[in-house]
């Protein structure tokens, strides 16, 4: 298990974006905790196998149609 903080930036100004991320994490069996949420920026902590965190990044990069994700920056949370 690896824990990482994802900083997702872009035009996320849709109320559907966060639920979309939550649903996708559930479909991957990835643990999720919201750190910070703003229209242009979302900080989320994910926990799961490294390949599943990669998959989480792939999903978020495309996201729902009414959001545009510019970047996903990942930071390892040590001690996990």
């Amino acid at each position: 298990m690896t824990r990482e903080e994802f900083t997702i930036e872009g035009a996320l100004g849709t109320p559907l974006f966060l639920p979309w991320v939550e649903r996708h994490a559930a479909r991957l069996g990835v643990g999720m905790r919201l750190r910070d949420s703003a229209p242009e920026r979302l900080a989320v902590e994910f926990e799961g196998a490294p390949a599943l965190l990669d998959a989480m990044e792939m999903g978020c990069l495309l996201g729902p149609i009414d959001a545009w994700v510019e970047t996903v920056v990942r930071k390892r949370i040590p001690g996990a």
Partner: protein
Amino acid sequence: MSELGAMRDQWYPVAMTKQLTAQGRDTLLMGAPIRVFADDGGTPKVTDGAGRALPVIDRFGHVWTSLGQPEKDLFTIPEVDQPGRRLVDVGVCRVRCSPLRAVENFLDIAHFPFVHTDILGSEPHTEVERYEVEIRDDVDEVWATKVKFFQPQAAKSAEGGITTDYMYRVCAPTCSVLYKTCPPKPEEWDVIALFVQPLTETLCDVWPYMALYDDDAEMTDLIHFQQMIFVQDRSVLENQLPALLPLDPGREIPTRADMTSIAYRRWLKRHGFTYGAQLVAA
């Protein structure tokens, strides 16, 4: 015409130049009937359903046209002009799928062991190693580089398998070029392109095109090989749900091995290239 969106002003392949006749080829471009023919001087012409002349480019052995007014010239493939390469017009393969799905499949290596078994891949060599993907803003193209995959038989002359290197570029919404290890000339890349003509949102004509350093193979063998590969792909492409390419992956599970697919879909989304795409997960 509004549903064509930004794809209206792009270039699309609509015929093989050397197959053109005065009588011409009646075909479709994004639902619109068009005719492709050679005029009295042998020059390719394209007209729409009302007989109006459409813009024409004759390049890479194919005739290209557009329903709109393309701002940019058609992309180039500089390798095509290198001396010693054999240029192969493979012909046409009709596929009942979204033109965008045909391109996405071309960008995918993870299916080689299962769809092109013992040709482009084989079990247990199924792992997709990390590779790099970027959108090159200067040329507005998607590029995947440092792609490696085990190929059981790299060429007719090759004994046993080798790890083959690939690079992929998406240079138009329905066109992709791949560069792969060239066994007879290790310092060069073989070039294989996929030009897709969108007939409708769920039907396309695929025109593969190659520029190879291969002095030995018969031209018909090269053509048959590529056609066989594409027939194998077709059985997958015609059985994906939904028929349109989803731009929201909410009902899919893309992994790191799908990074080129994701970059391609992001690029389509950013440009509003949505003919053949599904906007909402379904």
